[in-house]
């Protein structure tokens, strides 16, 4: 038995703890927004957050997530249904084509903005290069991340800190 807290809700599931978290989410919990792409952490389609950190759920044993907070694409909008700023920016910039990779793209971007509210191009390259988009919408993703970042209020000390960091 593994206990997960998924998008704020506790879920007890009876699975082999070695089974990847991806399949527990998709098959046991029917949260199909998280996608299978490669199975070896090369494409990022399966990205979710475990205790706030982006992980590739296809290569993360569900046992590792036991007792931890999991956030998936289904859990980033507000309780009242208001989309996350990144989701809105994705629509405004018409980012998705086939859309299959986009749950993972958005989850990587959410994690980026949580640690780096005003990302530089290099920050975006580093945070997003683990997510493949075969439709090639990278320039739109970059633009949407920058747009969404501007809608997120940044506390003064963090602004200073972010501005104080030299580009790598």
């Amino acid at each position, binding site marked *: 038995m593994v206990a997960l807290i998924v998008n704020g809700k506790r879920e007890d599931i009876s*699975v*082999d703890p070695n*089974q*990847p978290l991806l*399949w527990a989410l998709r*098959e046991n919990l*029917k*949260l*199909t*927004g*998280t*996608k*299978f*792409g*490669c*199975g*070896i952490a*090369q*494409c990022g*389609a399966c990205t979710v957050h475990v205790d706030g950190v982006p992980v590739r759920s296809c290569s993360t044993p569900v046992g590792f997530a036991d007792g931890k907070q999991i956030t*998936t*694409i*289904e859990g980033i*909008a507000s309780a009242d249904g208001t*989309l996350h700023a990144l*989701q809105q920016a*994705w*629509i405004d910039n*018409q*980012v*998705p*084509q*086939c*859309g*299959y*990779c*986009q*749950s993972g793209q*958005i989850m990587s971007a959410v994690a980026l903005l949580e640690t780096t509210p005003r990302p530089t191009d290099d920050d*975006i*390259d*580093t945070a*997003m*290069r*683990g*997510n*493949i*988009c*075969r*439709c*090639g*919408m*990278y*320039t*739109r*993703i*970059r633009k949407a991340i920058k747009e969404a970042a501007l809608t997120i209020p940044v506390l003064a000390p963090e602004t200073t800190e972010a501005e104080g960091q030299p580009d790598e």
Partner: protein
Amino acid sequence: MNKWTRRGFITAGALTGGALVVGVAIRPGHRAPKLAGMVAGEGEMLVNTWVKIDADNLVTAIAPHSEMGQGAPTALTQMLADEMDADWEHVAFEEAPAHEDFANYALAREYIAGEATIPRFLDGTVDGVFLALSKNMDMQITGGSTSIRLTGQRGMRIAGAAAREMIVKAAAKTWKVPARELRTESSHVYHDASGQSGRYADFAEEAAKHMPPSQPKMKEAAEYRIMGKPKQRFDIPSKVDGTAKFGIDADLPGMKYAAVMGAPVIGSTIKSVDTSAAEAMPGVIKIVQKDHFVAVVADGYWQAQQAIYALDATFDEGEAGTLNQEGVYDRFRTMMSEAVEAGKEKKDIAHGNARKAFKDSGHTVEFGYEVPFLAHAAMEPLNATVSIDREAGTAEVWTGSQNPLGTRNTVAEALGFKEGNVTVHNQFLGGGFGRRATPDYPVMAAEIAAECDFPVKMIWSREEDTQQDWYRLASISRFKIGLDDDGMPVSWDQQYVDKHDPPEAAHPIYNLPNVFVHYIESDHHMRFGAWRSVDHTQHGFYIESAVDELADTAGKDPYEYRRALLAGKPRHIAVLDAAAKAAGWGKTMPEGQGIGISIVESFGTICAQVVEVDMTGGMPRVTNVYVAADPGFVINPDGFTAQMESGVIYGLTAALYGEITIDQGRVVQSNFHDYEIVRMDEAPEIHVTLINSGARLGGGGEPGTPPIAPALANAIFNATGTRLRSLPLAYQDTDVA
């Protein structure tokens, strides 16, 4: 059997519940009542085959094209809604069911008119026991960049205009006023003289009683209000919150999961399988063994896949099991030389007398180029979910397909069911790129489900997806070109390996007095599949590299050289000029950086690209791509721009990294670690210029892909002086690097 005629018929009819359907049909008669049962719900009226109106005045376009990210459903709805004067805030799109009555009328009509050919790779899905279908050319394909230029132009617009006229006629009858006094706007009819107005829905039932007009009046470009405007795609909101349903997301009560292992040498058969270890693994329910594959069915996909790894199988591989990649190329070279020596070239196109003209040319040059096998590598691994009711002799399939009708028919054939007893529920496609036009994967899922008493979801691993593809085939091309004293080509002899689609892919767009293009056919075991832009992928690289070499030989600027060869072709020149101008062609590039240009016409669209590359890091880094495209008229400018961006990145991945090789007949590459894909940090800025020349409509999904590889190779030559004549480019030695 009804005979196809050149003339289309528009049909109409009322549905139960008071909705209306209008359609452009290839068959005569009032067929909407039959179709209505498939697409119209409570309170909806099928006005004709391709449009219905519900009681709330919602206008829904129905078309036989699937959404794989290319946005055709939205653009098709724009075409219908504009002609119909529908309220854009109150429209919807519905994919037509996989049924021959919804088959691609437009594609068939173009075929009959001799303006298009059915891609040969699809033959297998329409012949065999479905010969009748083949004869009738019932197609339902999303591919070949056909949706807008064929279905849209010849189907949706006519249906929209016809529906509008039918509603106006119905309103005129109801109000007892002349139809010419009525006007339409935002899904409403107005009679200004009497101040009367009504919703389309109010007249739908009356309209559906009448036969549609045979020649509805279509709008001139100046009258467009929805076409030509950027519109947000219908499918995007569901793709940012995880609710979009792809094939892999199908979920049925009691469903189990299957993983598969295909014979590693494609086309070979399984000799023996030791399943004992797999059978003992947790969750494993059943092992299904067929000639070409083994499947494990288990409680969960991961369990099924783990058990696949535990199988021990042997195969009858024959000679194919000894072939390696160099052997493929060596065989091409031998066969190419033999064909020329024996005078047994297969003619592609010839005019003038190229071989005689060599005698008159002052200077002859020869170049050879090489491209590898390519996999499609769509993000969503191939999958299908199948539920069979054996007693009823029926089956249902959930999958993402570019070819739902072919899927229905091949699944029915595999199961021995009547075609009409198989229902395909087409889902969003997690990438298609041509791969999802070949319905081998739903057939495989059906074969597995046929041996189970429950529905089965089959998912291919990424490794299977990479190694069991239908590939862009490896090919070699040889050019011999004779130049006059001014360095311009007077004779053009090109030989290449394998001709598929489209038939004109190897035909140069340039003014050349003497041309002989010919080919040989390969005999290896790797199977051909349509890969985004099909034969244009290799011929774009061959021809646009060769022309660049000619310009260099002549000591001329490659842009000006192309311009001179395109004299008398104003559309091509305008596109070339637009790309060059956007890039600031002629500017001095910094040390180690280069600029290259190319132009390819494919699927009715002319596309030129200028690439800027930085070689100072040792490997090519593409910084900017300037795209100019003329598809005649752009229905959805933002959507078309996105297709150009997508085509560039898809082609750039192939140009830099794309390479499938075989060893002992097996595909060597297996996943994204060794089949590399361009990522965020390598993505260039892409600057798109669109040209509405007013010419016949061209496609959008594919034309952005062919020009990027030659433009990049030409830019690398400009930066380094090294001419790269084989793909991929990323790891080859250059003089600067």
